[in-house]
């Protein structure tokens, strides 16, 4: 039956199409040559090492890290109480609030960046980094709320009542009894937020300036000037970083349960 051959061939082709390019980047980044090419001319780690030497990459890496970690933390600080309220209380207008908080997912990032530039940065002299921070927090907020809500909905509320009856305050009950049981969800939200923020480009397009660039933007800028394999090397390194984080999360958390 032709079916028997059909399946594996299709899968092979599709996987080659999806993952092949990534493998090519890895190979290209290990090139000993001067320009970006595949197959690589000789093997060498020089471009991988070069990545760490480029000053602007180091700076923008720091900025991307700051935005990813800071933005996710801020999103969680805003999002956890909101999720708690939405899942435990009968909030009037809950649907409207959920829509408002989730809206950043729907609007293309480039528009957010532009709007923030035009109405926050320029008129009020907000720092670009601050505006970027606000933008990233807003982008991650929907994910934080969604994932934490899912965890909370799976946790019965009567254990909080039990804790209160045993003498705990409401806030104490939240930290002693709710948090430990939604820890997995929070961690999953953190990782999801981090990866999303780190890989985000459009938002940062307009909100970039001298000395303030996220890593992907920096890479785009570099690409316009030089055509050497260091961008390939950096891409490969970043990809491994993302994959590593997600892999560890899956291993130790069963990440996919929460998302």
């Amino acid at each position, binding site marked *: 039956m032709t079916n028997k051959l059909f399946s594996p061939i299709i899968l092979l082709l599709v996987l080659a199409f999806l993952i092949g390019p990534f493998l090519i980047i890895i190979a290209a980044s290990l090139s000993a040559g001067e320009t970006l090419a595949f197959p690589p001319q000789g093997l060498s780690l020089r471009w991988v090492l070069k990545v760490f030497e480029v000053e602007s990459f180091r700076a923008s890496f720091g900025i991307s890290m700051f935005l990813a970690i800071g933005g996710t933390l801020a999103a969680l600080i805003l999002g956890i109480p909101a999720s708690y309220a939405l899942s435990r209380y009968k909030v009037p207008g809950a649907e409207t609030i959920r829509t408002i908080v989730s809206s950043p997912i729907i609007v293309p990032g480039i528009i957010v960046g532009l709007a923030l530039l035009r109405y926050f940065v320029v008129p009020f002299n907000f720092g670009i980094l601050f505006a970027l921070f606000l933008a990233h927090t807003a982008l991650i907020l929907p994910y934080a709320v969604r994932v934490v809500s899912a965890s909370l909905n799976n946790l019965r509320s*009567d254990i909080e*009542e039990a804790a209160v*009856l*045993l*003498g705990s305050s409401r806030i*104490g009950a939240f930290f002693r009894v709710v948090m430990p*049981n939604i820890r997995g969800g929070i961690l999953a939200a953190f990782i999801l937020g981090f990866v999303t923020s780190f890989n985000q480009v459009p938002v940062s397009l307009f909100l970039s300036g001298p000395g303030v660039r996220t890593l992907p933007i920096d890479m785009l800028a570099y690409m316009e000037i030089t055509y050497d394999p260091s961008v390939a090397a950096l891409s490969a390194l970043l990809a491994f970083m993302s994959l590593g984080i997600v892999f560890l999360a899956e291993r130790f958390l069963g990440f996919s349960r929460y998302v």
Partner: protein
Amino acid sequence: MSDARFLCLEKLTLSYGKNVAVPEMDLDIGKGELVALLGPSGCGKTTTMRAIAGLMEPSSGKIILDNVDITRTPANKRPVGLVFQSYALFPHLNVYENVAFGLKLMGVRGKELDDKVQEGLRTVGLSKFATRKPAELSGGQQQRVSLARSMVMEPKVLLLDEPLSNLDARLRLEMRTELQRVQKESGVTMIFVTHDQVEALAMADRIIVMLDGHIEQIGTPEDIYNRPVSDFVADFVGFENVFALENGKLKTATGTVELSGTAPLDAKGLAWRPSMVSLGSGPFEGTIRGTSFAGGTREYLLDTPLGPIKAECDASLPAHEFGSVLKFDLPVSQAAPLSRVGSL
């Protein structure tokens, strides 16, 4: 203060928004009593229980415990314990830590803490389970942990929400005995909420029957079982043939029917258990529309001019056939007189 007014609810009104669930309830419970709040779902028993625990704020009225007005006291400061229907054990803590939770919050530490927790576990027979997590326990075991967790706090009142309904028949009997034993040994005032009259009758010193937010009747199990006060209570405890009285006659769907005797003067209704219906002779006649064998007895459903009548006979007597016409009597001397009708 007399021990009989250890816990008092005075004109307690409980509402959900505009919906009044319990209007102006008055209730006294004595120290060391084992009391059941019995009624169908929606009758307000759980709401009342939650108000006593402090999980619900009353719209008006007072709750007084051991001479202290606790109406405005927050739940975490009330000397009240609650065993939840779902047991509400903390999933991330093991049995020992669950039981120790409240004590730790009070600042109990070290040897004193350990002694109290071990004692609590011993009381419910779970000393060997200290390191297990709730997910590793059976339903009955989880309930006992929940009980121990509340008991070590030495509450003045212990509330239990439907304690036996999640258990299978055999466990139910075990748990029932267990709860009674714990209560009698510790002397704690215990109030449990249930919709199952068998449970209430078996366990309680006193039963409070509730309907639509009101107390229908308060009494000992014998009182409730033998002398129901209203048609609702009568029906609830198994009097399947319940009638209102009009001018001394039985009121039916189509009119009134003469009794075979004289009803007590102040009775507004009469109720008979199936076993009280005498089959074979009497002024009434009916057709058998259903029979079932229940081991020691046989049950019959009769179509009669009075409406459907349920009767019960000893199984050793010859069985009556489906469709046969029989005479029967509702002897007034056997009936439970009801002073209130209209709740059914």
